[in-house]
């Protein structure tokens, strides 16, 4: 009976909280979506074929015009939808995912697929495109978001699904 009481109490608390904050559901623990909306979207880009092309030599902060490719275009469209400016950072997946994990970035692109080993550092969007490599193996492409920023992730998922349908 003690367990039953505990669970009932927990449920009650959840209901109270649900009615208390009718704001965004799901919500971001770190408020990524709120900060990006009308503000700045900090995006890490790692070079990878046609998905992400970077013309600047150096890694680190790069100009908007230096980053091209299919995923870069998608990110620009998404930022426009949020009314956000994009702040680009170029680098290796290692450096970028580490930044993402510690809250230094909001999004990482690099032609990554859903088999990416960076799941320990980042959340994955739903696969929004498929490709085949030279060996004929299929790849389901995803982007990386900060762990647990579910409102931001859902917004991006919605955008990517809509973009996929338009094509």
């Amino acid at each position, binding site marked *: 009976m003690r367990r039953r009481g505990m669970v009932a109490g*927990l449920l009650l608390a959840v209901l109270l909280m649900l009615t208390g*904050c009718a704001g965004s*559901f*799901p*919500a971001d623990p770190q408020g990524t979506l709120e900060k990006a909306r009308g503000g700045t979207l900090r995006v890490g880009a790692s070079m990878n074929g046609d998905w992400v092309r970077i013309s600047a030599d150096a890694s680190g902060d790069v100009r908007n015009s230096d980053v091209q490719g299919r995923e870069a275009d998608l990110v620009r469209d998404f930022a426009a939808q949020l009314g956000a400016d994009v702040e680009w950072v170029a680098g290796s997946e290692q450096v970028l995912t580490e930044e993402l994990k510690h809250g230094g970035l909001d999004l990482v692109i690099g032609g990554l697929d859903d088999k990416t080993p960076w799941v320990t550092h980042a*959340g994955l969007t739903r696969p929004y495109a498929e490709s085949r490599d030279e060996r004929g193996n299929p790849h389901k492409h995803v982007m990386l978001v900060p762990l*647990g920023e*579910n409102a931001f992730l*859902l917004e991006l998922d919605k955008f990517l699904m*809509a973009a996929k349908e338009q094509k």
Partner: protein
Amino acid sequence: MTNVTSHDAVRFGNTELPPEQQESLRKAIRIEWATMGFLVVTTTMVFLVLGNSQAMKAAWIEDLLSFLPPISFLVAAHAIRKPPSEKHPYGYHRSTGVAHLVAAVALTVMGGYLLVESGLGLVKAEHPTIGGIELFGNTIWLGWLMMAVMIITSAPPVFLGRAKMKLAEKLHDKVLYADADMNKADWMTAIAAVAGVAGIGMGLWWADYAAALIISASILHDGFKNTRAAVSALMDKRAMTYDDGKPHPLGRQLDEYLRSLDWAEDAKSRIRDEGHVFHVESFVVPAGKVTPSLEQLEAARDACVAMDWKVQDMVIVPVAELPAEFLPGPTAGGER
């Protein structure tokens, strides 16, 4: 009934079951198959929406573990039909206890594993990530689906559990009892998982781990409880009621009957629970130290066996005085 297979199905070794228990056993077998069918559906549904929620994972593993008691029951129900043999003179009743122990240890191990994993997740503050899913052309939050699935799958086990509980009492089956007990508590797991996912939705990432911890603790609790019950049954603990609540009243009844016999002065039995049926050794002190006749002994045994279907394997030993070394306890025949 001349049908051989159905006849086989309603025996526990040498023990012919009375009609009420035969019916209960058939029902129990049907309901355990139904439980397995239900579990196949729910584990699949939950797996499809599992996502990154630790609470959902814990609930899913609990669902998977719920297969063990029905499997144990069905395997044991099959094994105990075998009559005693030269090699197994006490029959195969203990298979119930063995099945119970295996299921209980599995619960304990998985409960402990999940508890540690959930605790580590909480300490490392790994924020659970749950995104969107495409459903009928719309992208909705996967968390809504998780909560819906948990709510849909929460109610049926409670009804299954209630039905099994009644049968467990009639059949004196502890595996069935343990299964019913877990089913009855299953809705709490579902509610905890819903609360965990709702917590994630509100941006309270730790709610997921808190819910997972509650679920793991409940699995571990079930594991400990069942391991203790299974081990003590295998250790020949005195026969208890089906829920291990109190000593089985049959012990007192037998002793009272034996003491009431004309030729008996005192009597005390030790009874162990073989699984469904009892193994009874009754020590009887004859009045005036006159050895009872074989007819008297046989009549007393028949009367005891007639008292309850669980009494079949019984010996009556006439003794000069009650052997205290075999019958520990405060008073002669004193069943606490």
